[in-house]
């Protein structure tokens, strides 16, 4: 069931299976929690992206890389 809940997030399952999942969810609060958690994870991962909160430390391109790139660009001008 947990695999089907996950898979239902990735593609449209046949109606019969979707009904089976829905019926199970009506009766199983643990699976309901699971599904909600997967949804929260999806929202949170997207939110971090929108906030540009990519790492636990600020992302800074090392100076070495910056200088190398700037030099390469100067050559192309």
């Amino acid at each position, binding site marked *: 069931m947990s*695999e089907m809940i*996950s898979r239902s997030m*990735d593609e449209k399952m046949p109606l019969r299976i979707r009904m089976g999942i829905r019926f199970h969810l009506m009766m199983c609060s643990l699976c309901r929690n699971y599904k909600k958690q997967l949804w929260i994870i999806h929202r949170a991962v997207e939110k971090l992206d929108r906030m540009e909160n*990519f790492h636990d430390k600020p992302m800074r*391109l090392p100076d070495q*890389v910056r200088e190398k*790139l700037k030099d390469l660009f100067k050559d192309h001008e």
Partner: protein
Amino acid sequence: MPADEASTLSPPTTWVDTYGDYLYGFAFYRVQDEELARELVQETLMAALKAKDSFAGRGSEKTWLTGILKHKIIDSLRRKYRDAMFEDQDLDERKIHDSFDHNGRWKTGPAQWASNPEHLLEQKAFLDIIRKCLHELPERSAHALSLRELEGESTQTICKVLNVTATNCWVILHRARFLMRECIETNWLQ
């Protein structure tokens, strides 16, 4: 008519300072590897330099550069998984099976993380845990998840990029989510 800043590109030498850190973070978040992310930024800016005449002026240059980076990320992942022989650690179903009893029921089931999920998404501590758990995923799981959840790629595309069968693709995604949720619950509810 307002000045249209999007119609012409700023000088390439300014791209590094204006967008370098952002592109680095964007790439890192998706590939979860600092060295690879640095390479991808360099590839992206070099490609953008060569392609600058093709910038049509629709949309911002940030979006344009990000678009090039997204392609570079996918190409890089495709190369990586085409050539590598991968341990099937992220296909290992044992950890998932251990979570269920012989009747297929949850042993210790998923708890409620919060009565109000929206409020949860506002909490820095929670988001920090999400980021940490994403970083701790097996590499291929993290890549599968970012392709699916961030880029919205179809499972068909993901299978091709990861060079796996459709079935394994679903298993990889399932396990990625399963591990994420377990990690988050452990860290959040302690």
